[in-house]
C-alpha cells in the first residue's frame, strides 16, 4: 500500500467512484473501506467532521475530502504518473469549469433527492442543466413553486436533456473530454453514467437519440478497466435498492 493510503467510500457513491477510477488509472495501491451511510465509522467522523461524507482519502493519516479536490491532490502528489489534468493553464481552467458545473448540480441532487425522491428526474435535471429562473425559485431554501407532477416532470425532462446537450457540445468530436487522453473531466462525469438507465426508464427519455456522442463516449470509458471495475461494484440493481430505501425512509412508497 502506497505510503498509508486509505479511501473511505460507499459502493454506489458517484463521488467515491471518481476517486477509485483515478487511483486505478494511475496504478496507485490503496486500502478501500466501505462506509455505511446509516452507521458512519468513527474514522469518517474524525476525518471529515465538517460534512461527514465520503469520499475521504487519508494519506499518511491526513484527510483530503471533496472528490474533485482529491483528484487534484492525487495529480499533484503522484507526479511520476500521467496527470489527469492537462498541463496548459487554459485547458486546466476549462476542465475545472465543467467539473465544477457537474459538481454543483450533483450536490443539489443529493440534497434534494433525499427530500423529494419522487422527483428523481427533477433533481437530476439540476445535475447538469444550466441555471434557470424556474429552478432558482424551485430550489432556493424552501421558496418552492408548485406545479402539477406532470408539468414538473416535463419541465425537468427538458432541463435534463438541455444539460446533456451542453455536455454533448463540449465533448464535440473528441475521443474524451480530455482530448486523446482520458482525464479529469472524464473521471468527473463518467460515474453518473451509472444512473442513465434509471433516468431513461423513469422519465421515458431517449438519451442516446439526443446525445449520441455522449453515449458513445460513455461506452468508450466503460472499456477502460478502471471504469468497468468501479461500475461492477455498483450495478443498477443496487441503485434501485438505494432509491427504494430512501423512499421508504421518507415515507414514500410506490
Amino acid at each position: 500500500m502506497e505510503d498509508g493510503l486509505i479511501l473511505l467510500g460507499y459502493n454506489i457513491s458517484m463521488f467515491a467512484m471518481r476517486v477509485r477510477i483515478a487511483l486505478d488509472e494511475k496504478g496507485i495501491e490503496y486500502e478501500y473501506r466501505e462506509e455505511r451511510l446509516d452507521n458512519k465509522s468513527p474514522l469518517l467522523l474524525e476525518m471529515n467532521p465538517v460534512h461527514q461524507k465520503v469520499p475521504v482519502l487519508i494519506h499518511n493519516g491526513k484527510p483530503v475530502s471533496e472528490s474533485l479536490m482529491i483528484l487534484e491532490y492525487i495529480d499533484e502528489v503522484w507526479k511520476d504518473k500521467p496527470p489527469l489534468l492537462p498541463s496548459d493553464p487554459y485547458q486546466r481552467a476549462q476542465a475545472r469549469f465543467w467539473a465544477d458545473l457537474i459538481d454543483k448540480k450533483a450536490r443539489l441532487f443529493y440534497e434534494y433527492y433525499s427530500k423529494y425522491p419522487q422527483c428523481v428526474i427533477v433533481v437530476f435535471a439540476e445535475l447538469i442543466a444550466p441555471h434557470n429562473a424556474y429552478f432558482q425559485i424551485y430550489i432556493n431554501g424552501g421558496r418552492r413553486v408548485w406545479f402539477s407532477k406532470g408539468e414538473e416532470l416535463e419541465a425537468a425532462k427538458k432541463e435534463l436533456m438541455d444539460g446533456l446537450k451542453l455536455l454533448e457540445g463540449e465533448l464535440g468530436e473528441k475521443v474524451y473530454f480530455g482530448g486523446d487522453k482520458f482525464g479529469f473531466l472524464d473521471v468527473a462525469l463518467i460515474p453518473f453514467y451509472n444512473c442513465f438507465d434509471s433516468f431513461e426508464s423513469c422519465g421515458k427519455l431517449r438519451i442516446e437519440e439526443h446525445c449520441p456522442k455522449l453515449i458513445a463516449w460513455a461506452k468508450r470509458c466503460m472499456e477502460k478497466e478502471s471504469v468497468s471495475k468501479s461500475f461492477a461494484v455498483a450495478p443498477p440493481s443496487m441503485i434501485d435498492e438505494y432509491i427504494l430505501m430512501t423512499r421508504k425512509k421518507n415515507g414514500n412508497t410506490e
Partner: protein
Amino acid sequence: MDAAKSFQSPESLFVVHSESARMATETVKVLGCWPSPYVIRARIALNIKSVEYEYQEEDLLGGNKSDLLLKSNPVYKKVPVLLHADRPICESLVIVQYVDEVWASGPAILPSDPYDRAIARFWAIYMDDKWYPRVKEGFFSEGEASKIAFEEADKGLLLLEEAFTKCSKGQKFFGGERIGYLDIALGSHLAWIRVIEKASNVSLIDEAKTPNLYKWAHDFSADVAVKDVLPSTDKLYEFAKLLISVMKGSTPEK
C-alpha cells in the same frame, strides 16, 4: 516555491514555462460588476500578480448584459469573466487558480504543498457552498428563518476561525505573510458581510466570538491588492437597498 513546478513533469516544464511567459504578456480583460464578491476575487488575484487589465462594468441590475458577456459565458451568463488573449475563463475560483498558474513568477496565491492546497480548496468550497448561502438566507428571509440561518452562519464562522488558526500558523493571513487563496475566497465577501451586519443588526465577524477573523478582516481590507476593489460599506449599503426594491418590485433578474 514556483506553483508551476508542483504539477509539471520535468520534460514539459521548460516548454510550459516558455509558453506561460508568452501568455503572460497577452491582453487581459475582466467583465464584472462592482458589488459582486466573485468579481472582486478575480481583480484581487490580478492585483497580487501586478497584471494590467481592462475592466468592463456590466449593467446587471438594469438587465443589460453585454453581447461579449453572453458570448463569453453562454452557460451561466454571469460575471466575472476573465478574457485572456480573448479566451474566456469563467467561475471565480477557476479564474483565481488560472491567474496563479499563468503568472507563476508573481507571488503565489495557492500554497505550494499539495496538502495545504487541498485544505485551501476545501475551505473555499465550504465558504461558497455551505457558509455564504446561510448568510444570504439570513439577510433575505425574515423572522425565525432568518434567525436560524444566522445561527448556522455563526457556527460556520467558528469553523473558519479554527481553519484560520491552522492555516495562518500565527501569521496575518490564511496564506501566511501575504494574502492567498483562502483570504481571497473569504475576504471578497467582507463588504457584503458588513452591509448585512448593518441591515440585519447582527454581528457575524465578531471581535469576541471570532477574534482572529476580526483582526484578519481589518488587515485584509487594508491590503494594497484589495483596498481599491473592495467597495465601501456605505456605497454597497445604498446598492443593497436598491437591489431589494428591484427584487420586491419585479421578479428577480437572472
